[in-house]
């Protein structure tokens, strides 16, 4: 399996590359279908959070911190705008110093005031911010204080785990050129308007208005005030973006290449056709074209999987009036999990481009967050054992379907809330449009049928699946869904710190199946707020055993095909890119 | 007569499948400058013979024998050779003009095409000018406007003349005119015959005329060929034939010829019922008052086809409608039964107003009437067998016992019941026409609108059909609007006669009065133009008419 080598980067001068790095040159990068970039402003509003928006933006306007998923334990300082943060002992305040050498394109230094500008706009307009989560940033900042030109301090409302706070909150911050952008209307004067909430609203509205003019991204003078290694040279309405080396960049991470073109494709097939004709330098193979690896390689490409910092799973709807009580039985979930032949699915159906996942923390690259239990699959594929679990709890297989014959809460009974005669017939909503997913679901259906669980599958476009499997109360009509899969591209991509407060906490917004377990809640909380280094591992192990969802193999982010002449590429599992470090070799 | 024949057919045999021997050993010769008439029973193979001269028979036909045009054997020719002959050497006027014109092109275009096909260097403009001249030659007034019209906008007679114009366009050596004047009123017919004579005189054209009208034969033919059941039973000069018919069939034919003379009217058992005075007493079968019918012409202009026509047909009365070709007779007929909406005026059918009738009422009313269309080919659904076509009114009215009834109807129009399984395109023109008649009388209607019902029938069959018609009329007492060009037939069947000219009803009155004592000029001309089936007498009449 090529999955264990996630982020197999090659450092400059890597002898394995053969040849010497060059300055200059241009590279074409293929974006996946429907990834059309449409935003460069450092504050994204809803609908503008496509992955490539972030990638492009952080080349132009440096965020405070950037993580490189190959090491999720600390930020990649070189790529950000600030030095490492300093947390107070009690974990209730953080002090940050901006890098000394960075300047905006208009010659102004990048200062703490620029961060304050960003912060003020967010604070006054948090409802319009796509990544706003109630209780989190900026709600958890009690006070923002400028210490000096380059330094500021933030007081937090409670103690937080520093790793979590840096990775999941501070990464959202991004200095913005206050001296150029603090304007209330077109042609207006620059001022300190952001310091009053009304002023901040006006400034925000003006800037967002400008950000809505996609066709002007390459020409609007506002966006020329960049501090990153690249500037926007071309930004077409169909989504083709060309980044050009920023000659005024003053940091230590200057770009090697002259231009990088991010090219949109209408379909994976179209991309593959172009790739096969050598039309892109950095592209990808659709999973089903993996057998072409040899051909592609012979054409001067390296084929490398790009693992995702994600997990893939099928939530149980614990609030479903019919099957909820069944799902609540751990032994049932265990039986189901033991029927998922993850290894074979990953190998045969995903052609080795997926990694079996056993718990809530991404399995690769293996880091310090993986719990011991999750590392070693606690529920090995074993249909006999799975079936035995059912029969030993009072289920009898009638006409191929397990039927509860011994209701009750005892050890050998079906369990609390499961009525006599209940049949194990599950309905699964799944995402359409992918052969791999279709086949995975059929495999699941097939193996579940062998232990007496009848699974009926309905596939719908991704959006419908999401619409049809909301968080719900048992009495609501919308709660009729039982199982739901939306993970063809991975179900959940984590920030650098893979804590589960958004998906597995009892009150979490995206806890679709309303999983609720007091111990799990406690562990989730600890992972974000305690400073204990084992908090994540404990959480990981517990959920791997408690099965809030069906764990499924996690597909790679993509399988890349990279020209052999292109060096310096790091395939960041968090789907970020650092094109400033790419270079061509002779 | 030593000149080599322009057209020579020797021992022609044509069969369709194993059963139909359409032509059985026919030999005919036409010399340059000679006009030969072919007469004969309907279905005797006249049209098939003529079509075989140009190789136009459907592939189902098996042809043997020799056909020579100007000494060249046509049957041996390939496509290109045939094409060179078609139109230029031998031209043909087809029997049924309605379907013979391409519906998608203007008549001007179609005539011009005939010219340009053989005169490669003729300019388009010149071709259209010539086309207009040709249309005028065949007696079409307003030829320039007609050039721009489509076939469906023309009356039957106009279409037929367009066909003639097309045929003579290239001044062919041989002209075959298959029932070329059936849809023409007698005045126009006389003009056309004059035209043919001129063509013969000027160009030495050899002309083969196929017709049922013995008057026409007497008028124009030098020689006559009589066909019967696929064979030639007699050939003679026109004088000989009329004076001394040899074959049994010829004799029968000549005795059946209707003549336009006083007292020719068939006596009917219940004539008393229909004395003019009494007819008015009952509800009239058809009452048209101030009928106006307009068609849309070019650029929204309106053409009045029927102009304030008022006409009443009493119950059981037969009214003959005669008049110029294109004068609106067919339009009156169609309007009477509600197929065309009048622009103004009213139609009362069997005592009920047609103008207001809708849906079920209209259908009920229509079931008591029936219509025979002028063009039998287009009024039969090409995808239904003859049997089904005739059975259709029976089915509509849910009358059982159809098989027997269909057989009886076929027999009454002198058709073999075996034709019921054939499709309309497998019949001769006259046979198709008889299907139309059989269909119209299937329901014992109270009113029959008959638009040229016997134009394609040879006189012997025509006599049978007219007998049948009158017999039925006696028995059932239906009223009838009888549209025809054949004044002799009108004289035979009509109680009253109405005459139309350019959309107007110019004269109307009892038969004897209109036919033998006409008030109007037009009527007088009409009567004078009617050819009589006697060569000597006809020559005299012609001289008289020309001096008129």
């Amino acid at each position, binding site marked *: 399996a090529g999955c264990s080598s996630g982020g197999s980067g090659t450092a400059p001068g890597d002898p394995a590359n053969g040849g010497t790095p060059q300055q200059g040159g241009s590279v074409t990068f293929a974006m996946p279908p429907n990834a059309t970039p449409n935003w460069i402003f450092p504050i994204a509003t809803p609908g503008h959070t496509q992955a490539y928006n972030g990638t492009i933006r952080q080349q132009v306007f440096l965020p405070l911190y950037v993580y490189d998923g190959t090491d999720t334990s600390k930020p990649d300082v070189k790529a950000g705008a600030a030095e490492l943060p300093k947390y107070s002992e009690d974990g209730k305040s953080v002090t940050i110093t901006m890098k000394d050498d960075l300047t905006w394109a208009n010659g102004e230094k990048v200062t703490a005031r620029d961060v304050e500008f960003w912060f003020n706009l967010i604070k006054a307009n948090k409802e319009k911010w796509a990544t706003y989560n109630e209780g989190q940033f900026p709600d958890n900042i009690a006070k923002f204080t400028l210490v000096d030109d380059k330094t500021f301090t933030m007081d937090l409302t409670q103690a937080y785990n520093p790793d979590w706070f840096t990775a999941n909150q501070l990464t959202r911050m991004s200095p913005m050129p206050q001296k150029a952008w603090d304007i209330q209307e077109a042609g207006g004067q620059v001022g300190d308007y952001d310091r009053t909430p009304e002023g901040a609203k006006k400034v925000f509205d003006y800037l967002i208005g400008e950000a809505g003019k996609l066709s002007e991204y390459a020409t609007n003078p506002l966006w020329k005030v960049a501090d990153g290694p690249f500037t926007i040279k071309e930004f077409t309405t169909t989504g083709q973006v060309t980044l050009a080396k920023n000659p005024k960049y003053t940091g230590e991470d200057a770009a090697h290449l002259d231009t990088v073109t991010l090219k949109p494709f209408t379909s994976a097939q179209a991309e593959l056709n172009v790739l096969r004709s050598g039309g892109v330098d950095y592209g990808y193979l659709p999973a089903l074209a993996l057998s072409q690896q040899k051909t592609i390689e012979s054409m001067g490409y390296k084929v490398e999987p790009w693992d995702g910092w994600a997990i893939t799973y099928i939530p149980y709807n614990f609030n479903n009036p019919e099957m909820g009580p069944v799902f609540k039985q751990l032994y049932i979930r265990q039986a189901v999990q033991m029927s998922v032949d993850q290894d074979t699915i990953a190998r045969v159906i995903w052609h080795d481009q997926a990694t079996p996942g056993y718990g809530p923390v991404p399995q690769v690259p293996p880091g310090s967050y993986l719990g011991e239990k999750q590392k070693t699959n606690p529920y090995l594929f074993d249909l006999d054992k799975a079936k035995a679990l059912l029969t030993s709890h009072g289920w009898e297989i009638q006409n191929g379907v397990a039927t509860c014959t011994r209701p009750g809460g005892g050890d050998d009974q079906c369990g609390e809330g499961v009525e006599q005669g209940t049949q194990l017939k599950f309905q699964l909503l799944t995402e359409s449009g992918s052969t791999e997913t279709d086949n995975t679901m*059929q495999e699941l259906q097939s193996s579940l*049928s062998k232990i007496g669980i009848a699974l*009926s599958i309905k596939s719908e476009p991704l959006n419908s699946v999401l619409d049809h499997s909301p968080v719900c109360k048992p009495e609501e009509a919308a709660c009729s869904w039982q199982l739901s899969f939306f993970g063809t591209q991975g179900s959940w991509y984590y920030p650098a710190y893979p804590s589960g407060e958004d998906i597995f906490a009892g009150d979490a917004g995206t806890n679709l199946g309303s999983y609720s377990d007091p111990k799990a809640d406690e562990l989730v909380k600890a992972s974000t707020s305690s400073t204990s280094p084992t908090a994540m591992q404990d959480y990981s192990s517990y959920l791997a055993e408690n099965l809030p969802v069906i764990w499924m193999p996690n597909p790679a982010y993509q399988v890349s095909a990279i020209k052999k002449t292109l060096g310096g590429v790091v395939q960041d599992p968090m789907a970020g890119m650092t094109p400033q470090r790419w270079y061509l070799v002779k | 007569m030593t000149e080599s024949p322009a057209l020579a057919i020797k021992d022609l045999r044509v069969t369709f499948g194993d059963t139909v021997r359409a032509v059985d050993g026919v030999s005919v010769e036409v010399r340059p400058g000679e006009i030969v008439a072919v007469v004969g029973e309907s279905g005797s193979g006249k049209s098939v013979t003529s079509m075989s001269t140009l190789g136009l028979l459907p592939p189902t036909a098996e042809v043997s024998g020799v056909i020579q045009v100007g000494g060249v054997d046509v049957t041996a020719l390939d496509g290109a050779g045939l094409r060179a002959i078609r139109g230029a050497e031998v031209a043909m006027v087809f029997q049924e003009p309605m379907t013979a014109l391409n519906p998608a092109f203007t008549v001007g275009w179609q005539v011009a095409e005939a010219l340009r096909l053989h005169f490669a260097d003729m300019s388009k403009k010149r071709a259209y000018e010539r086309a207009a001249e040709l249309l005028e030659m065949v007696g079409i007034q307003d030829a320039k406007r007609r050039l721009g019209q489509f076939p469906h906008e023309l009356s039957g007679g106009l279409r037929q003349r367009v066909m003639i114009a097309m045929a003579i366009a290239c001044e062919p050596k041989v002209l075959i005119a298959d029932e070329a004047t059936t849809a023409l009123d007698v005045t126009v017919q006389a003009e056309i015959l004059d035209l043919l004579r001129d063509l013969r005189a000027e160009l030495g054209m050899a002309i083969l005329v196929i017709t049922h009208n013995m008057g026409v034969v007497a008028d124009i033919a030098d020689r006559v060929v009589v066909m019967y059941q696929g064979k030639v039973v007699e050939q003679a000069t026109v004088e000989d034939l009329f004076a001394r018919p040899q074959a049994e069939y010829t004799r029968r034919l000549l005795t059946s010829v209707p003549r336009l003379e006083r007292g020719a009217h068939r006596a009917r058992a219940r004539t008393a019922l229909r004395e003019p005075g009494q007819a008015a007493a009952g509800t009239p079968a058809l009452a048209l008052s101030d009928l106006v019918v307009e068609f849309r012409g070019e650029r929204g202009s309106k053409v009045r086809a029927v102009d304030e026509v008022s006409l009443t047909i009493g119950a059981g009365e037969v009214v003959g409608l005669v008049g110029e070709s294109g004068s609106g007779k067919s339009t009156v007929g169609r309007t009477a039964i509600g197929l065309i909406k009048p622009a103004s005026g009213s139609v009362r059918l069997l005592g009920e107003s047609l103008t207001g009738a809708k849906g079920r009422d209209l*259908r009920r009313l229509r079931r008591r009437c029936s219509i025979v269309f002028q063009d039998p080919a287009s*009024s039969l659904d090409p*995808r239904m067998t003859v049997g089904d076509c005739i059975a259709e*009114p029976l089915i*509509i009215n849910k009358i059982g016992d159809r098989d027997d009834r269909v057989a009886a109807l076929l027999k009454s129009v002198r058709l073999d019941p075996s034709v019921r399984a054939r499709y309309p*395109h497998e019949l001769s023109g006259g046979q198709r026409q008889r299907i139309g008649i059989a*269909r119209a009388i299937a329901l014992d209607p109270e009113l029959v609108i008959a638009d040229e019902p016997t134009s394609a029938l040879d006189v012997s069959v025509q006599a049978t059909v007219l007998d049948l018609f009158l017999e039925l009329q006696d028995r059932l007492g239906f009223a009838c609007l009888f549209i025809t060009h054949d004044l002799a037939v009108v004289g035979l069947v009509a109680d009253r006669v109405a005459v139309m000219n350019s959309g107007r009803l110019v004269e109307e009155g009892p038969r004897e009065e209109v036919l033998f004592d006409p008030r109007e000029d037009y009527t007088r001309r009409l009567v004078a133009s009617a050819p009589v089936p006697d060569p000597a007498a006809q020559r005299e009449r012609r001289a008289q008419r020309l001096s008129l």
Partner: protein
Amino acid sequence: MVRLFFANRLAVTGLVLLALLLLFCFVGPLVHPTDQIHTQLADANLAPGVKGHPLGTDDVGRDVLGRLMVGGQTSLEIGIAAGLLATLIGTVWGAVAGYTGGWLDAIMMRVVDAGIAIPALFLLLVSATIFRPTVTTQILIIGCVSWLVPARLVRAEALSLRSRDFVQAMMAMGGSHRRAVFRHIIPNAIGTVVVNATFQVADAILLVAYVSFLGLGVAPPATDWGAMLSNGISYTYDGYWWLIFPAGIAIILVVSAFNCIGDGLRDSFEVRLQGR
């Protein structure tokens, strides 16, 4: 006409072909029983002949021959029923509109316009979220989105047919409009109708594939030829021809069978062209 139809060698070939296909799909599984319920990942993508699979196995290890039979049942049922349904509705609708003319024609044709204007794709997507896919709902949905074309076609023919004398003649005999439409207009437009019907069946079978791709298809493990084909096509570069050709050929065979039958039908109506 029936006689004519059977005298037509092409038509009989079509009928025989269709009968064979039906036999293959509905009786075949009795002769060649396979497990189409369970996946067999260990045996995925076996080449034909290996391990007793005459046509190999698909990407989750099911016997392709058996799958062809099962898939054919769905395809044939939906294709034929939906194709005929669409042809039926469309023909009658178009004939009535064209024959009647006037405001009724205007209204009926504007309904068709509106129907065509709403992309079928969109309707399918919406219905995907409303209905659970069964063979019956599929037939109805596909039938309901595809009758618009024949309606337009037949209407165009009817428009010129209605002015023909034989229709007029029948009207003059007091025949009902119904008779005019069904006995004269439609039989005389039969060429167009039949050609369209063959396309409708093909379309329906292909549409089912499309529909499965959208997620409206019959739920797995059921399948159909179109879905098999579109799935197999992803393996073009791998050379797994047995995932592409059997389904592809099967589709072409049904389409051709219908075409032959259609041509035969057409010929038996087109009595005038015999011998040509």
